[in-house]
């Protein structure tokens, strides 16, 4: 009997097609994939690849010099407003500590939906940093917002040393049981080379991405 549902019909059609021809004999899976693991060099490897894609990287052994450097970087990019998610205490703490360096005003991420014309920095804790690719991982797990890394002109991602993993596999494994609605790997600022193959920063997303590793 012909199933009426187009989805079932597709599955039937595919199954029938597969019976028509045996595909090539699959090779055995390789024992392991030689992916350069960071190990002790995790953070250094992350920095190298993140910077190669145009990202900025800041780390220091004490909080004070780190805030100074970050405040300076934001001021130089013309940032006037700092945004942080309400449910992100680390981001709030950093944003509040940064105010005197600007001076900056503080706001909540939902204001990004009304573009104001003045450069805005979105500050948010990132969940993972992947050494293999130099990527930040930001997700919607637990209802987290994605707007700071999406609509802000400058994206500041806060990383704890525990956020670093060697390979993409590790963070996907941690998320795959019940994947959040959005898992984003972010590696440097938005870019395009669509006009004359000339690399240009800031096509749609942030023009600057700063990864900050806190001691």
């Amino acid at each position, binding site marked *: 009997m012909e199933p009426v549902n*187009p*989805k079932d*019909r*597709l*599955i*039937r*059609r*595919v199954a*029938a*097609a*597969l019976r*028509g*021809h*045996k*595909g*090539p004999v*699959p*090779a055995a899976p*390789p024992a392991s*994939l*030689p*992916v*350069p693991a960071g190990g002790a060099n995790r953070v250094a490897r992350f920095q190298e690849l993140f910077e190669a894609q145009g990202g900025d990287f800041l780390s220091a052994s004490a909080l004070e010099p780190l805030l100074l450097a970050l405040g300076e970087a934001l001021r130089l990019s013309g940032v006037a407003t700092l945004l942080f*998610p309400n449910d992100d205490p680390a981001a709030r703490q950093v944003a509040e500590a940064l105010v005197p360096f600007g001076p900056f005003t503080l706001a909540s*991420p939902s204001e990004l*939906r009304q573009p104001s014309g003045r450069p805005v920095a979105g500050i948010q804790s990132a969940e993972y940093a992947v050494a293999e*690719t*130099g*990527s930040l991982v930001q997700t*919607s797990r637990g*209802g987290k*917002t*994605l707007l700071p890394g*999406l609509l802000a002109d400058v994206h500041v991602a806060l990383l704890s040393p525990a956020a670093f993993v060697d390979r*993409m596999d590790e963070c*996907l494994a941690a998320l*795959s049981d019940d*994947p*959040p*609605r*959005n*898992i*984003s*790997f*972010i*590696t440097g*600022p*938005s*870019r*395009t*080379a*669509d*006009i*004359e*193959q000339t690399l*240009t920063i*800031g*096509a*749609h*997303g942030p023009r600057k991405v700063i990864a900050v590793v806190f001691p």
Partner: protein
Amino acid sequence: MEPRSRSFHRNSEKALANPALQSAISRTTGKFLGQRADAIAEFPGFEAARDEGSRIKGEALDHLDRHLARFIAEAEKRGAVVHVARDDAEAREIAAGIATREGIALAVKSKSMAAEEVDLNTALEGAGVEVVESDLGEFIIQLAGEPPSHIIAPAVHKTREEVSRLFQEKLGEPYTDQIPELVRIARRRLREKFLSAGMGISGANFLCADTGSVVLVTNEGNGRMGTILPRVHLVVAGIEKVIPALSDLPVFLRLLPRSATGQVISTYVSVLTGVKRPEDAEGPEKLHILLVDNGRTGILQGKYREILKCIRCGACLNICPVYQSVGGHAYGWVYPGPMGSVLTPLQTGLSQGAPLANASTLCGACADVCPVKIPLPDMLLELRGDEREQGLKAPAELLGVKAYAAVMRRAGILEALERIAGVLSQLFFKEGKVPWLPFKLSGWTDRRDFPAPSPQPFRKLWKKQRGIRPWNR
């Protein structure tokens, strides 16, 4: 998209006569190739990843019924609505229906080759939807009213001056020859659209069966905008995009950006699973996934199954001497280069696409670079065989090939012909070059000289230079 592959020869003549296009193509392909080579030199695991990627795709295709069923069930469990289109007309009808039911006036679209295949924009515009292409290259060619010419860099054929004049004319922007300024204009224009669009449309680089996730890989971030901000997200993807598990994704992320642009990873990779959850701050309330067959089950059935492993990286385009010479438009349909030369005849029919399968020297470069090890040259050869079997070859070509085979089987005749050609060339072509050939053969001499036949037959030269006699080894 209406295929025009039958006129490949005429299309390529036009492309070869366009010097601006020629330099744009060689700049792009050269750059991609160089960056790809560097990225692979720095990644010792590339070969192992190719084997693994090819194996996983093979396994996914050999059990596609199971994986598709799983993908559909998992995606729907998480709130997605999955639709299935057998062909392009059905896909257009379904998409227009979705837009109408959701009450969409404005949609932002990021690149989807499957949407291009079924001509989605026409259908949506017919349903009263304004569709804005949000990938910068696609945005440019949409303004120009042209189809893409490269699957990774759709506007490779446009110079900054042409882009600026286009922005001036269509958007009323002031003229500038600064690329960053052009990008800023597009960013500003498109940001307004992202914030007001009711629907985001995307393709999918991968669909994960075990979680029902849709994976998007982009550099600009347009795919991210269009799948987070609008209320509705429509995914248009071929059924072959399914991979068994989310945990299979890393190997493809190691292959795709390196092969496409030489990046270790593209700037943005989004793994999208289901609709906005009650606790989520943003995300689409509605997720429609439109799975397109459009000839794929037919391909699955036969000896060309492996072409469905293709992850659309574009490496085979960049390395192909034919693509390097004629660019993407000449191929006349959605997919150019070696992968297009296999897919076009299979999806649009051999009588339409056969000229593409013949436009190759079978040099093998595409198979060498393909990250999922598709035997592209074998398939091109196989397609020529099919063309012969279906009686689609021109009688003159068959006669020519038969004559060629007859000569090549008889060493004596070959040598006699070589001697005659040698004498004639001594008489007529003193420079050792043939600058002009008559009629159909003129293609060989229009843009370059053909080397004149040697005065001595091949076997004599061989004997002299190598000191061996192949016939009594």
